């Protein structure tokens, strides 16, 4: 299609032309003013314009009326948060730019500036674009058609309040479910929804396991998932393993610390199936077969142990590896074995110094001169006679024999020499750490992958030192204000908090005296919200409302299962190991910050089940998500520059950031707080008008329906315009932001955390935060010898829970990735893209223009060639579950046999609304419904079952060219 004139200018074809020299006599041209100095090679005459005027035009473009501090409360998680200046001109947000004034924390460690990314940098466009919801809408036509009638707030609120009242009376609050998604904040948004749930006794979906960020391997090993150092701590590392994460894509504001650590002498190793973007600036990239990271981890451990490189002192003190296991039952030797009335949670070791078996120190990890054996067999004198016991480490050693580098090489595809070299590097590092995110959590055997990863660093004692550490699921929030969700309406939240603390004090003290650490007590307290049904484990809910056959199909794919998933699940329910979601018929669903009809694996099946059954689907959002598109009512949410709030963060960037109102809410949108407030107000008003006084809650108690707003608003302390008052109160109660007030933090934009407080979100970091130091997690355990919050009070690699024993997974083990979806040759994985945080920017026109404008599936060049697929062609992706269409993009860096579709495209960006989530069965791993095991028991964000979409198998075919 290149025309002739263009072809001539291809470089190298000799299209070089001479210049200069007059070709015609001036006389022939009759130049009247022939002074001979026409000087054609000179600058054109009179070429001097009024430059100042022209440049002033651009100078005038760079003007604004006001600047406000704000940010984006979207769930970017590992890379959250960033302080932005929002520039407003003529009442419109013109643009945003990073504030860039974070003070340097530790001397000789780079600072955090400027943070930010391309997505935040164009929110100013997103908030005004074609997908913005500006007015309350009511559906006309079918669900999902996208046909609406504009209504008023009053009309909308009244209609849904009436339905809510009807259902509260007829079916009870269990028939009304909220989803906060990941837009929940720790501020007035979160307060509004949580307190609504509390006052109405309507449950809220616990989204973390739903999306697969629940780190089951960390939970089972460390007793917690929420721990991480700060990103600037990496500057002090000499070995950084980027393993199970792609920070160049998904930690954009933090990633510079990795590159700078490299310049500071750290060796950067990436381990991934594909030569991903994080690998391009690494010192070493190690390609690993998809889903075989457990085998790699165990092989590294095998080398470490075989070559005597393990840190014996560390593992003797911090792990369960010296604890004794009965050879007859395979269970830990327990207090109940050894003494009449002995405890189930007392364990034993063999002390080399005394030559005797003795109880493991309980209240502290400090060994006080005890030298626990790591090998050998010993005789324990139990209540029922002598029993041979052996330390976990000995069992582990035998397990590791199956994972020599040669054997692991066959599984992982990594050369044995490379495995050995890596193991030695980790063991000899001064401070080795890992950058790992949430990808393993989404594999069927992700629990094992994470355990093995943790084992590698643990064996080398790479925890607790500056620049070292294992990472779980980082999280950090303001502490001390959580009680506002549930405290007594008769008192101010501050007083209510004190009263609750007072009430809990005796039990707290008792637990402490019994040897429970603060961490353990805090986790125990939040487990209560599950027992009382405040949260629903999302995947158990989906199981019940239409996806049971799909996500319960585990035994079909997992050859190691001898009974169906449902059998495990029912056993778990009966024993109270998992909490059964409300059995009520689902009638009303309130989507207030998530997008269930995008994120749920198998969402399309929900159309015919849950969604079809619902009387009412309501969405509150600022953009048209797929869930909004299928809703009966949409209420417009104010965007992040249009309201005030504060939210949680992570230790990676340990700052609490705020959003503040730079411009009034667009259209008729309202803040999240205003929405929940007005909803409660309307429910109370209508209940009174309809003379309905009470409802029966899920525990059978009668409560006042006609006082819900009084309860919600603390007897009128707050109303729908009280966002900043709520925030002022929250900040007054906050213990870990150095006492900063709402007014102060609103002006600054952020504040650094000063401590963890007693928040269950924070406390797992188990360290103190110093004002002039990076954060290194878990020093309370490694330095202060505080027990870990597990059953054995140590990092626990032997799990003698019946489900784990049934599945042969007491010890970390590699199991082949099950062929989910059928026996197809290509392994489909997803991943988080650099181009959006979940779906929020997926339809941003400028970001789409910087991609291909629509979803693409990445396919290796050779795999494509064999299927006659060319770059940019439309393909069908299919397996036993379903099929969908998308565009193929050739990716030379992708591993042959693997295909990738980065996630969070809205279903309405695919033909027929079918995406990769329609073909992924995502079955539940039975280990993830285990419970009743001290640290395996549901709590918010963890210990409930997650998805397994990363093991999906597919085939791809070219769709015939038209």
């Amino acid at each position, binding site marked *: 299609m290149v025309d002739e*004139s*263009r072809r001539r*200018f291809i470089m190298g074809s000799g*299209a070089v032309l001479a210049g200069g020299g007059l070709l015609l006599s001036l006389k022939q041209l009759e130049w009247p003013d022939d002074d001979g100095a026409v000087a054609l090679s*000179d*600058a054109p005459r009179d*070429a001097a314009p009024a430059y100042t005027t*022209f*440049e002033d035009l*651009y100078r005038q473009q*760079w*003007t604004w009326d*006001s600047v406000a501090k704000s940010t984006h409360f979207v769930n970017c998680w590992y890379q959250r948060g960033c302080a932005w*200046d929002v520039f407003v001109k003529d009442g419109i947000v013109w643009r*945003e*730019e990073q*504030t*860039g*004034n974070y003070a*340097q924390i530790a001397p000789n460690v*780079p600072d955090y500036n*400027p943070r*930010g*990314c*391309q997505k935040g*940098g*164009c929110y100013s*466009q997103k908030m005004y674009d*074609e997908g913005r919801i500006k007015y309350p809408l009511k559906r006309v*036509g*079918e669900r999902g058609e*996208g046909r609406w009638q504009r209504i008023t707030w009053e009309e909308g609120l009244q209609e849904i309040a009436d339905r809510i009242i009807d259902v509260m009376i007829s079916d009870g609050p269990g028939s009304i479910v909220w989803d906060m998604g990941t837009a929940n904040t720790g501020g007035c948004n979160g307060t509004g929804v949580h307190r609504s749930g509390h006052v109405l006794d309507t449950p809220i979906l616990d989204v973390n396991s739903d999306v697969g960020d629940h780190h089951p391997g960390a939970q089972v090993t460390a007793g917690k998932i929420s721990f991480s150092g700060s990103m600037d701590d990496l500057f002090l590392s*000499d070995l950084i393993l980027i393993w199970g994460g792609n920070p160049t894509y998904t930690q*954009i504001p933090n990633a510079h610390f990795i590159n700078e650590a490299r*310049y500071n*002498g750290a060796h950067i190793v*990436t381990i991934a199936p594909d*030569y991903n*973007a994080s*690998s391009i*600036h690494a010192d070493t990239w190690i390609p690993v077969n998809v889903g075989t990271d457990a085998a790699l981890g165990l092989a590294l451990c095998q080398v470490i142990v075989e070559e005597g490189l393990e840190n014996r002192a560390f593992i003797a003190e911090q792990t369960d590896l010296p604890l004794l296991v009965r050879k007859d039952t395979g269970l830990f030797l327990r207090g109940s074995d050894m003494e009449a009335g002995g405890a189930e949670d007392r364990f034993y070791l063999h002390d080399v110094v005394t030559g005797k078996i003795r109880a493991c120190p309980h209240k502290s990890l400090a060994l006080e001169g005890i030298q626990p054996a790591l090998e050998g067999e010993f005789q324990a004198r139990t209540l029922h006679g002598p029993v041979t016991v052996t330390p976990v480490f000995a069992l582990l050693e035998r397990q590791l024999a199956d994972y020599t580098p040669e054997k692991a090489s066959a599984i992982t595809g*990594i050369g044995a020499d*490379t495995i050995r070299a890596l193991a030695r590097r980790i063991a000899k590092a001064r401070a080795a750490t890992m950058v790992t995110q949430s990808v393993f959590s989404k594999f069927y055997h992700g629990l094992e992958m994470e355990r093995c990863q943790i084992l590698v660093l643990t064996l080398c004692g790479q925890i607790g030192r500056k620049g070292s550490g294992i990472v779980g699921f980082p999280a950090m929030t303001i502490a001390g204000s959580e009680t506002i969700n549930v405290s007594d309406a008769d008192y101010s939240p501050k007083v209510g908090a004190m009263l609750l603390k007072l009430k809990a004090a005796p039990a707290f003290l008792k637990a402490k005296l019994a040897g429970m650490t603060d961490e353990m007590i805090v986790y125990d307290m939040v487990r209560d919200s599950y027992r009382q049904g405040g949260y629903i484990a999302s995947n158990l809910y989906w199981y019940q409302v239409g996806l049971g056959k799909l996500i319960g199909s585990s035994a079909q794919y997992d050859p190691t299962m001898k009974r169906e998933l449902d059998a495990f699940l029912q056993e778990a329910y009966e024993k109270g190991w998992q909490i059964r979601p409300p059995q009520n018929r689902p009638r009303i669903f309130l989507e207030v910050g998530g997008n269930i009809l995008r994120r749920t694996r198998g969402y399309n099946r929900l159309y015919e089940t849950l969604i079809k059954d619902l009387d009412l689907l309501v969405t509150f959002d600022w953009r*048209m998500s797929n869930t909004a598109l299928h809703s009966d009512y949409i209420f417009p949410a104010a965007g992040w520059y249009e309201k005030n709030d504060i939210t949680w963060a992570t230790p990676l960037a340990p700052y609490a950031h705020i959003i503040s109102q730079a411009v009034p809410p667009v259209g008729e949108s309202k803040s999240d707080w205003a929405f929940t407030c007005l909803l409660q107000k309307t429910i109370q008003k209508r209940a009174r008008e309809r003379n309905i006084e009470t409802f029966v809650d899920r525990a059978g108690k009668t409560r006042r329906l006609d006082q819900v707003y009084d309860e919600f608003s603390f007897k009128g302390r707050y109303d729908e315009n009280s966002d900043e008052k709520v925030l002022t109160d929250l900040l007054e109660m906050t213990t870990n932001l150095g006492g900063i007030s709402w007014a102060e933090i609103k002006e600054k934009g952020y504040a650094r955390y000063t401590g963890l407080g007693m928040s269950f979100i924070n406390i797992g970091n188990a360290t103190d935060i110093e004002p002039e130091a990076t954060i290194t997690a878990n020093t309370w355990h490694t330095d202060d010898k505080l027990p870990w919050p597990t059953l054995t009070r140590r990092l626990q690699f032997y799990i003698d829970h019946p489900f784990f024993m049934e599945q042969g997974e007491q010890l970390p083990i590699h199991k082949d990735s099950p062929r989910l979806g059928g026996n197809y040759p290509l392994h489909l994985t997803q991943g988080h893209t*650099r181009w959006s945080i979940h779906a929020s920017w997926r339809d941003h*026109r*400028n970001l*789409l*223009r910087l*991609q*291909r404008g*629509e979803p693409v599936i990445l396919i290796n*060049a050779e795999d494509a060639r064999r299927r006659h697929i060319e770059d940019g062609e439309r393909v069908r992706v299919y397996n036993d579950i379903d099929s969908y269409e998308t565009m193929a993009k050739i990716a*030379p*860096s992708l*591993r*042959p046999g693997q295909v990738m579709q980065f996630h969070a495209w809205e279903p*309405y960006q695919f*033909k027929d*609304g079918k995406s990769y989530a329609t073909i992924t069965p995502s079955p539940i791993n039975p280990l993830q419904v285990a419970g009743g095991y001290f640290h395996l028991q549901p709590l918010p964000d963890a210990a409930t079952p997650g998805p397994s979409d990363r093991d999906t198998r597919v085939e791809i075919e070219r769709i015939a060219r038209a």
Partner: protein
Amino acid sequence: MSDHASIGREINGALVKPKRQLAMVLDLNKCLGCHTCSIACKTQWTNREGMDGQWWSVVNTMPGQGTPKGWEQMGGGFESDGRARAGIIPIRQEHGDAWRFNHGQVMFEGGGKTSHLHPMTFDDKVPDGGPNWDEDQGDGEYPNSYYFYLPRLCNHCTHPACVEACPRGAVFKREQDGVVLIDDTKCKGFRFCMEACPYKRIYFNHVRQVAQKCIFCFPRIEAGVAPACARQCPGRLRFVGYLDDEKAPIHKLIHEYKVALPLHAEYGTQPNVYYIPPLSPPEVDAAGNVREGTRRIPTDYLRTLFGPGVDSALDTLQKELDRKRAGAKSELLDTLIVYEWPRDIFPDFARSPADVPGDFHGR
């Protein structure tokens, strides 16, 4: 002649230079390919009428076609003897232009079940190219494929081909800092500048019928604020300063350590944007073992971009990394780390825009 109009031109065999010259150095070992620079520029300047398809700042995956597609074969610049080299104007499809979308149809006009959100080109076709179409593809074969990110902008050249090309003198180079500007009140849309620029960083505004390009954020520069692409870069890789400032980091990088190199110096325009070439991880052999000591990006390829200085630039970087790992100090690496931002990366432009008066007359 030393009037405004002659700066940047060859007059009587000599190049007329500005009093001072601003320059930028980009460390390609830190670029994440995130495009925050491109978005920063877009919301700063190219958010206006007719500028939808303009990306003054682009980030190209290399090896790759770049933006516009195939720009390295579009001519322009100068021959080694100074003669102008013919070039062609990139067409909209080659720039990637600005696709339109059908949000309304899907979301609000009843097309939720019968249509889906998709892009269309300015001439109503399904797109087959865009400004970042070949992102992360690169070259080579698994497991030894390779790519890196190359952010590009107007180089504000010392001998700008665009200045020489415009018959109206609408393109000029500022005396005080060497920034090259197209006076779009004088521009008549002849687009010879677009032919002549060898880096193809000039766009055409079809609504206003004028050529437009990066202005090095001169209003910000004048207020002591770094250009948006540099200041907003989360990777902290874009150093900005004056070439004559011996104390500035860019001086060290270009003149002392010589790790910062121009892109396609053979185009003859003397660009003032420099790049520190990327190191790369070793290759992997058929047994899945890492071949220590190799670099997977062929140095030959890097030489075609950054010239013969690339070999020693890479060796210098590697040597300094090795020294650091052995416990020695490295001034070069400490410079590239940027301990304190913005002081260590654009010391003369460390002001925040939020601290500048929002009113033009207040400055």
